[in-house]
């Protein structure tokens, strides 16, 4: 375990060193990442500033959901979601083969070599938005914080599940970076209060593909009004991760080297 963590840290160090070759572009990219992630909260702000609202939800409550979503992405995207880009790029170039011959698990190597430093901008954005929303709502109690902490970890589990599915797709669907768009289009449902969606969709985002866990469910606990079916969504999240892992392994078996 310690050895695995040491290798992971080495991967992060190497990725940062490579990225620092173009420092100006790196810092611009981090700021841009912040700006890109600010679009949805900005639209929410504009809607509320024009006197409109999502019924039953104040602006800061909605921003809290979006802040938690961003926080979850801010941790997952740099530290393990880079597996998606890394896999697609390596399969396209033919260098995915190199991961197969390393004396470590292919999955671990794909994660380590996929550290994405630019996405740390998302983490900064998440912290800022989360804090800004939090100071404008009644401060949560200790139990709410504990529940939130547990659910936030589950949101990372769901993120990892998505990472595995997209990476698995990248193994067989050569050079298609648009798989990210599939994720974003689905994840969009987790950035808003679930009660604005139809019953069928609410069931879908909590009990089938648990995207509500990415923002809405942890935020609901922090706001002191837990979402319906939270426990069920937690179980589904772990099942989702398990199935994603199976999917990734099945795709790996189907990998055909491009011989780059």
């Amino acid at each position, binding site marked *: 375990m310690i050895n695995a963590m040491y290798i992971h840290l080495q991967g992060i160090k190497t990725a940062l060193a490579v990225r620092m070759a173009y420092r100006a*572009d790196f810092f611009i990219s981090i*700021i841009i990442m912040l700006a890109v992630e600010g679009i949805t909260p900005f639209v929410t702000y504009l809607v509320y500033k024009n006197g409109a609202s999502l019924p039953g939800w104040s602006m800061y409550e909605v921003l809290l959901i979006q802040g938690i979503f961003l926080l979850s992405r801010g941790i997952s995207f740099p530290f393990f979601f880079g597996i998606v880009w890394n896999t697609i790029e390596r399969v396209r170039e033919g260098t995915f083969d190199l991961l197969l011959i390393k004396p470590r698990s292919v999955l671990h190597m794909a994660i380590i070599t996929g550290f994405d430093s630019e996405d740390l901008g998302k983490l900064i954005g998440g912290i800022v938005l989360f804090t800004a929303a939090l100071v404008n709502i009644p401060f949560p109690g200790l139990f709410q914080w504990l529940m939130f902490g547990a659910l936030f970890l589950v949101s990372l589990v769901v993120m990892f599940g998505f990472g595995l599915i997209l990476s698995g797709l990248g193994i067989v669907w050569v050079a298609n970076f648009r798989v990210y*768009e*599939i994720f974003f289009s689905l994840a969009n449902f987790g950035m*808003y209060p679930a009660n604005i969606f139809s019953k069928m969709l609410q069931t879908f985002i909590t009990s089938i593909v648990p995207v509500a866990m990415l923002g809405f469910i942890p935020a609901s606990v922090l706001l002191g009004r837990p979402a319906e079916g939270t426990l069920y969504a937690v179980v589904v999240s772990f099942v989702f991760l398990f199935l994603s892992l199976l999917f990734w392994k099945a795709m790996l078996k189907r990998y055909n080297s491009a011989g780059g």
Partner: protein
Amino acid sequence: MRDKNFNQVKNLKRQINILKATALTTYKEWAAYRSHMAVSVLVGPVFFLVQVFIWNAIYSTRETVTGLTLNQMLVYFGISAVIGYLTYDSSDMDLQMLIRTGKFITFMLRPVTHSYFAFSQKLGHRILALWVEFIPVYLLFLFVFKINLVPANIFWALVSITLSFILVFLTNYCIGITGFWLTKTEGLRRAFLVLRDICAGVFVPLTLFPDLMQKVLFFLPFQFITYVPIRVFIGSYELAGIKMSIPQIVGLQALSVVAMYLVYKLLWHLGTKRFTGVGA
């Protein structure tokens, strides 16, 4: 005089042949990856579905938002999505890659300018997108979501979308040209694209912005990329309290294309002077 006219016709024919050949090659090249493009058939409607629920919830307590009804708001997002498929451009990324890798040098030796080559490529790429992305998503919006995507005046809508097509190319190409000064410009490129899309009204209608910002946006060229074609499509134009007729705003859009062309010419002139490619 006759010889001069003959040469002009011959040159025009040659340019058209280059355009056709490049567009056709790009079309064939990208047709191999048509499944990548077809992702839009899933992603576009899913994104739109979220918008439908959000705006339905918002409008459940009011009739209008900044003067737009629920139906108009959904039409806005529907048109924005489908116009995006027609005008999408990646010339900035392509040009910057060529400059960074030094491969641009081969274009300095070719009997055709890179900008014309890139424009022809875009044309071929978008013709493919017409049937892989635009038509399927258009039909889904029309029949599944029941969004009225019929332009108020088809002539002006086509003119406006064509001008937007050229404007997106020119603005992106200018960003690509910055690669002559900056070694790696991915960050700047993304910054520009975000700023462009916000100011163009891709994410929300520009009338939702504060008054002061609307006034600033009125004088920037970005509104002509998305906001203006959508308003032309709908059949009415208003921004920052300024109402204009459709021919007037399309006329302004044409002027912005000319202005952007001049900016491109200037940047190109300055940028190519800086280029040094070794053994690409």
